[in-house]
């Protein structure tokens, strides 16, 4: 690609100083940090090729309609337009999908959601492409939409996918139910008869958007061998390739992907967006094609968090011992399957939360509807359930007149507890302890908006610290403080029998007299800091200072997805294993070269790699790594797997379904202007067990970021969809995410209780804080207002009682 610029490059990092080795456990800095602060880092939307065209997508304005005809002739006549494609122009496979191939690359005969891709255009200039797309004439005949459980399953409901033959179709009661997972354990009816107190409520979670900042984008370059090179922002290069190759009619090896800079992901890049479209246009025109979504299109270009309706019932003894729990969780999967089956599995298996309950009945299901497709977002399935079961804990505590933290601690699971799935929790589960830690933290001062006396005479008011902020809506009158707690449980890694693995290639060689390591994986660095950790692992395992991170691509084996809090565990584990293998090879080489030298070589003694040397267990240097290697490069590529899991039984939900669990607890302190319904979150403290913080700075960064996304779901973030399936707020003007003024101090207490099954004892970190943050904030608002608040996000009208039934 001589004519292309702004492509991903290798990044080399040298550990700083001599005392600090830059290994695991240290807060080493990001190797890509300097490039990111100078503006040089090449994100997917920055890719550029001298000869490139710009692609554009025409999307459906209706949620459900028949396509009677598509006329592209006028678009094709516009000067500068190089290609226009519809479903009829697709060369090979016409559908794709992560688990079920039910999504058309371009719609054929029917559109199933607002924003579905219907046609694509390539032109010399992005504006030409946009104008040409607007000239494509599509004759639609609107169809009645399916939008909730009742409309999806009633007699005569239109079927989203008639003639389903996927592996879930056999066990669901209606073809518009995508997947259903029950869990049955113990005897709920008998336990109910024993219960002193029963609490039953309905809950609702709105549709959240991942709202990553770097929009969907990529550059597809047709290659001389008839294949295509795609530079792309994604979460999983190999699964993109596996979906693309059949659509392009190419063997997998001719579809080569390289990760470009990724501006956040949070689940939204698990599914394909513009990948197939750019590759198809590149192959049709023989020219590189770049597609970049704008924010409006981005809201239609990726899946969202499943909105959910949940019904929970808990029964307990008078002293607060949970006797049984029942729940029904209905997730709206929208028009296509995406990762909905896994979301159902998580919602069901984690639906009761981090509590010991012997008698359980759970039913979780996902619907096919004409709403926007929903799939992966940070904490999926577990987030929705956590909001409901934590609200239940507070409701139960109130019914029992018990402290809500004490109720939780009394029922908290611990190592050795058995989940409703029958799976034993066989690693530390410090649920009661993390609750204790957030509870014992000192409270932020009352009336924190009043400026301290040192700042000047009299008591000043800083409106920036009040609900309403710079809108200057109150100076403290009508403001009530509330405090709330929540705790959650999230699985780490891919569950339910999925063959989850990662691959790493590590090489060590001498460059300029110094032994250096090269780490090559296909891990998608989406901002989480995997590249930082890989360099740290290589330093710890190989004793080198200088580590080069190769761009992630499909020239090395799959790393699996950057999701499910799994990458440090999985690709970190693969890098560790590859380093161990390289170390063995280096030692073999050393034994051959230095057989007559230091006795440690021949005694079979343990030898370590430190500071560029090979040393005995006692620390005595036996050789410089560079002297062992000389001009030889030692390399290995290895595959790492976590322990196997098994699917949940389709009737009882029993099974060893998960690899590892992650726990976080929050305490939220809020101030509510009860007259205007405005909420200011004053502090959102978190305690989380991370097993081992490979990079404490990055670990805390994940916890604070996840916490903030949970705060967004609590009080502001929701994609509003009309009953006709149309999205009402696809912009950052109308879909609000927390700003720095909305986000409070987030003190974090990190526990490191090792999980012996995991590399270095670590525990996936990214998702757990997104679970408990939301219910903690809402609990605090309930505490301030006395309102029930059974729906998130909580909006001002829910607090003032001025909301309409339609949106409340």
């Amino acid at each position, binding site marked *: 690609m001589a004519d292309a610029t702004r492509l991903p490059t290798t990044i080399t990092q*040298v550990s700083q100083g001599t005392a600090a080795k830059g290994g695991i456990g240290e*807060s080493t*800095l*990001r190797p*890509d*940090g*300097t490039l*990111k*602060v*100078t*503006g*040089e*880092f090449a*994100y997917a*939307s*920055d890719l*550029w090729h001298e000869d490139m065209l710009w692609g554009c997508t025409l999307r459906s304005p209706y949620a459900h309609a028949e396509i009677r005809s598509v006329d592209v002739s006028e678009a094709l006549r516009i000067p500068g337009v190089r290609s226009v494609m519809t479903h009829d122009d697709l060369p090979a496979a016409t559908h794709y999908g992560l688990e079920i191939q039910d999504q058309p690359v371009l719609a054929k005969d029917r559109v199933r959601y607002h924003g579905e891709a219907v046609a694509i255009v390539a032109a010399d200039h992005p*504006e030409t492409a946009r104008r040409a797309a607007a000239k494509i004439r599509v004759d639609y005949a609107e169809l009645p939409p399916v939008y909730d459980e009742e409309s999806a399953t009633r007699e005569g409901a239109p079927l989203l996918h008639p003639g389903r033959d996927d592996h879930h179709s056999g066990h669901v009661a209606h073809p518009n139910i995508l997947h259903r997972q029950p869990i049955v354990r113990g005897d709920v009816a008998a336990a109910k008869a024993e219960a002193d107190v029963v609490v039953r409520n309905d809950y609702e979670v709105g549709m959240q958007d*991942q*709202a*990553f*900042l*770097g*929009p969907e984008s990529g550059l597809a370059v047709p290659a001389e061998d008839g294949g295509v090179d795609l530079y792309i922002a994604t979460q999983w290069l190999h699964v993109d390739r596996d979906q693309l190759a059949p659509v392009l009619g190419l063997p997998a090896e001719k579809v080569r992907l390289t990760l470009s800079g*990724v*501006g*956040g*992901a*949070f689940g939204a890049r698990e599914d394909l967006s513009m990948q197939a479209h750019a590759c198809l246009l590149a192959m049709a025109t023989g020219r590189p094609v770049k597609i*970049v979504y*704008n*924010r*409006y299109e981005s809201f239609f270009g990726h899946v969202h968090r499943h909105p959910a309706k949940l019904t929970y019932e808990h029964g307990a003894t008078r002293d607060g011992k949970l006797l049984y729990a029942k729940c029904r969780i209905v997730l709206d999967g929208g028009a296509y399957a995406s990762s909905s089956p896994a979301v159902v599995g998580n919602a069901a298996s984690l639906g009761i939360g981090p509590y010991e309950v012997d008698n359980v009945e759970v039913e979780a299901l996902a619907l096919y509807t004409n709403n926007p497709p929903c799939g992966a977002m940070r904490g999926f399935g577990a987030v929705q359930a956590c909001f409901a079961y934590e609200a239940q804990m507070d409701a139960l505590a109130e019914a029992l007149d018990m402290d809500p933290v004490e109720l939780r601690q009394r029922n908290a699971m611990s190592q050795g507890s058995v989940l409703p799935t029958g799976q034993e929790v066989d690693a530390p589960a410090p649920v009661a302890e993390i609750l204790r830690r957030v509870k014992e933290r000192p409270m932020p001062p009352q009336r924190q908006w009043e400026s*301290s006396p*040192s*700042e000047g005479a009299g008591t000043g008011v*800083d409106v*920036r*610290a009040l609900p309403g902020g710079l809108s200057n809506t109150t100076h403290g009158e009508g403001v009530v403080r509330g405090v709330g707690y929540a705790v959650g449980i999230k699985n780490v890694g891919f569950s339910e029998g999925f063959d989850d693995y990662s691959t790493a290639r590590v090489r060590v060689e001498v460059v300029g007299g110094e032994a250096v390591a090269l780490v090559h994986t296909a891990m998608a660095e*989406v*901002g*989480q*800091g995997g590249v930082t950790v890989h360099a740290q692992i290589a330093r710890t395992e190989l004793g080198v200072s200088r580590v080069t991170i190769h761009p992630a691509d499909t020239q090395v084996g799959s790393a699996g997805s950057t999701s499910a809090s799994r990458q440090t565990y999985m690709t970190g584990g693969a890098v560790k294993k590859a380093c161990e293998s390289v170390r063995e090879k280096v030692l073999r080489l050393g034994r051959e070269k230095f057989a007559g030298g230091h006795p440690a070589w021949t005694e079979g003694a343990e030898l370590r790699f430190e500071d560029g040397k090979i040393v005995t267990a006692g620390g005595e240097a036996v050789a410089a790594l560079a002297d062992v290697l000389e001009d030889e490069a030692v390399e290995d590529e290895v595959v790492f797997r976590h322990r196997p899991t098994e699917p949940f039984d389709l009737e009882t939900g029993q099974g060893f379904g998960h690899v590892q669990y992650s726990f976080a607890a929050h305490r939220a302190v809020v101030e509510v202007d009860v007259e205007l319904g405005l909420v200011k979150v004053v502090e959102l403290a978190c305690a989380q067990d991370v097993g081992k913080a490979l990079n404490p*700075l*990055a670990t*805390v*960064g994940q916890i*604070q*970021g996840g*916490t*903030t996304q949970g705060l967004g779901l609590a009080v502001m973030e929701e994609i509003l969809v009309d009953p006709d399936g149309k999205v009402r707020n696809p*912009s*950052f*003007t109308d879909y609000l995410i927390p*700003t*720095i*003024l909305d*986000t409070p*101090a*987030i003190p974090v207490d990190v526990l490191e209780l090792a999980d012996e099954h995991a590399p270095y004892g670590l525990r996936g970190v990214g998702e757990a804080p997104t679970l408990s943050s939301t219910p903690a904030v809402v609990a605090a608002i309930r505490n301030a207002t006395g309102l029930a608040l059974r729906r998130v996000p909580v909006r001002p009208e829910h607090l003032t009682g001025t909301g309409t039934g339609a949106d409340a």
Partner: protein
Amino acid sequence: MRVTFTVNGRRHEADDVWEGESLLYVLRERMGLPGSKNACEQGECGSCTVRLDGESVCACLVAAGQVEGREVVTVEGLADLARQRGETPAEGAADAGLSPVQKAFVDAGAVQCGFCTPGLLVAADELIEHNASPSDADIREALSGNLCRCTGYETILDAVRLAAARTGQPAGAGAPDAGPDAGTSQGGAI
């Protein structure tokens, strides 16, 4: 139309600019300066924040024609701008030449995906230029037009405190450990 303006101290000319083109498009697609980011192109996220004649603006909301004859500073020009103000650039193999604000963002862990970073850097740099020791509330106010989805903003606050403290230090005085500061509030511009 032809538009002529100064970017990071260098005179640039853009030909055949279409009337609807934004300053952001001209910078990114015509001038080879993709540092200013295209996160929303609606003036809501601040990722494309640049200085226009010294004022922080969203480049996506400025029509290319409006910058005729004017001066623009982007993230790519922050190090030069700091040098012009007499600030000491960072030394070291990895971060040579970074301005104090840029260096502080790396050191404080304020960068994750980094897509919001260029805009935040320009906004934070302007804040510290006008308010050498901003309080936390000043920082929050000044950066309230810049969305970040990864960090939860805590490390961004750390970075700005650190940059302000380092900028206020004489050269070679080392890196102070910046904490919250109740200093004078001059009201950072939004």
